[in-house]
């Protein structure tokens, strides 16, 4: 069963920074829902994801999963990173089993993990050292590792951004299939608009300096999604527009240092100034 998430007015300051990284973030996610967080780099989307995982505690506000405040990592919610970060001294099966070993659930573990490896298409690689796998295969092992503990929530931090286009598409569809089969809630961070539309039930667009939630867009397309259908491309275009609005003014080159752009900050910070029209459209789309 998927987890219900409630993000309650999170504001976060990193030490030694005057501007908050995140400001007044409020969001609720229903069980089994898939949410995409998109935004410019430095908008704090990864910070927010780390808070959901319990790897970082917000300075103000709280994350609640199924009503319980998140204060530390738990095998019930699992995070996948951009790099698979498998342990190179272990076989594929051992890597995928780790969560269960740490939980002390060794009984029937091999059977369980083998079934999972079968699901991600790596059954015959179970005894192989992970260093011999391709990037896509390694990320599949990481996926199996994340699913082994039966998480209620899967958090993905740009997990496919280092993969080639074909492998990426394949894995996106696979994660959607597996999470829907199991009713797992998924929150993922990306700056790939197609990925957001392909996987998410709802896309949340974040603005930067400070990180705020700017728009939400419901993606009401049936699975498996046809990426060439008119509905898909239309949503992609719409999302692109919201996304473009967050980098207002559009002609400005990207600041090299995210914290130093205080001169433009008031303008960019005000959601009403930068995107009231798209915001209204977003509500209509929802």
């Amino acid at each position: 069963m998927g987890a219900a998430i409630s993000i309650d007015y999170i504001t976060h300051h990193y030490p030694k920074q005057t501007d908050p990284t995140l400001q007044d973030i409020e969001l609720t996610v229903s069980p089994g829902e898939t949410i995409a967080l998109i935004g410019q780099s430095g908008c704090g989307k990864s910070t927010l994801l780390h808070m959901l995982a319990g790897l970082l505690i917000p300075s103000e506000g709280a994350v609640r999963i199924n009503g319980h405040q998140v204060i530390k990592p738990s095998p019930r919610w699992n995070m996948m990173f951009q790099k698979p970060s498998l342990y190179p001294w272990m076989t594929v099966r051992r890597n995928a089993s780790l969560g269960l070993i740490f939980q002390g659930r060794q009984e029937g573990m091999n059977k369980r993990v083998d079934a999972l490896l079968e699901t991600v298409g790596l059954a015959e690689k179970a005894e192989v050292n992970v260093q011999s796998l391709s990037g896509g295969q390694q990320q599949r092992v990481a996926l199996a590792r994340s699913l082994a503990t039966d998480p209620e929530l899967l958090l993905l931090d740009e997990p496919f951004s280092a993969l080639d286009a074909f492998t990426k598409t394949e894995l996106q569809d696979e994660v959607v299939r597996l999470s829907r089969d199991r009713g797992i809630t998924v929150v993922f961070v990306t700056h790939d608009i197609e990925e957001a539309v392909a996987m998410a039930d709802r896309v949340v667009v974040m603005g930067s300096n400070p990180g705020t939630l700017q728009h939400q867009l419901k993606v009401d397309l049936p699975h498996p999604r046809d990426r060439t259908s008119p509905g898909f491309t239309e949503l992609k275009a719409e999302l692109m527009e919201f996304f473009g609005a967050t980098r207002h003014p559009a002609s400005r080159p990207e600041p090299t240092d995210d914290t130093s752009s205080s001169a433009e900050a008031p303008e960019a910070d005000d959601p009403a100034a930068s995107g009231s029209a798209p915001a209204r459209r977003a509500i209509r789309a929802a």
Partner: protein
Amino acid sequence: MNRDATFDLPATPGEWGWASLRTANHLRRRLQYPLLGIAGLLVLWWWGGWAIANNPDTMAFASFAPGPTLTAFWDIVSSGQVWSPIESSLHRVGFGLLYAILIGVPLGVMIGYFNVLRETTHVPFQFLRMISPLAWMPIAVLAFATWDAAIVFLIAIAAVWPITYATAHGVQRIDPMWLKVGNNLGANPYHTLRYIVMPAIAQDVFAGIRLAVGVAWIVLVPAEYLGVTSGLGYAINDARDTLEYDKLAAFVLVIGLIGYMLDAICVRLIRRSSYHAES
């Protein structure tokens, strides 16, 4: 990539010839330079022996030359005389290293992990590390009831530093993502140590042990010059006192051979503990 694996199963009997030829070729390539090196050392030794024998001032030491030494070496091996000092020496080095590992590895893990500890211990440890272990000899003799224990202490204090710092270096090199992923999967501190930290640093620990073996083996001989009546250091001193220079040189040879073997064992351990894919 170990390409020899592909030579293991020749398809036809005709290919056996090729396979054995390749094996011979491979063996020759592996051994030619080491054998050249050994030959070079022997020539140098022989030349040194010849020079000593032909100088009236040093003629008395002529039995350091390869001929008398190898004869004496054969004598001490065939008479079994060589084993007792080897056993005593290995016993001392073994215990010294054991204590050094038991202290050095946990200490190294903590120094590598906690910045505060690393900075606090830096000056005192570097200071202690640079003191020759033999300088502790008088204190060791006072502090320990037996000479044996004093020697074990000297070896341990010499061997502990390479192990500690190699371990600390290994811990500092651990990919932070490995710890983060472990944390995310619900690892407790024991799990982190057992499944992540120890396998990650195993190779560094054994590299430290290899250095420690080298230091311990060097410290052993001068430590055995004093007090004890067994071991390779004692055997050398004894041979000097009885003017048996051929026997003395034979024991030097034994020290070198055993040191080489200990080092070879460490190299094997380092290789086995490496998690890097064969390349």
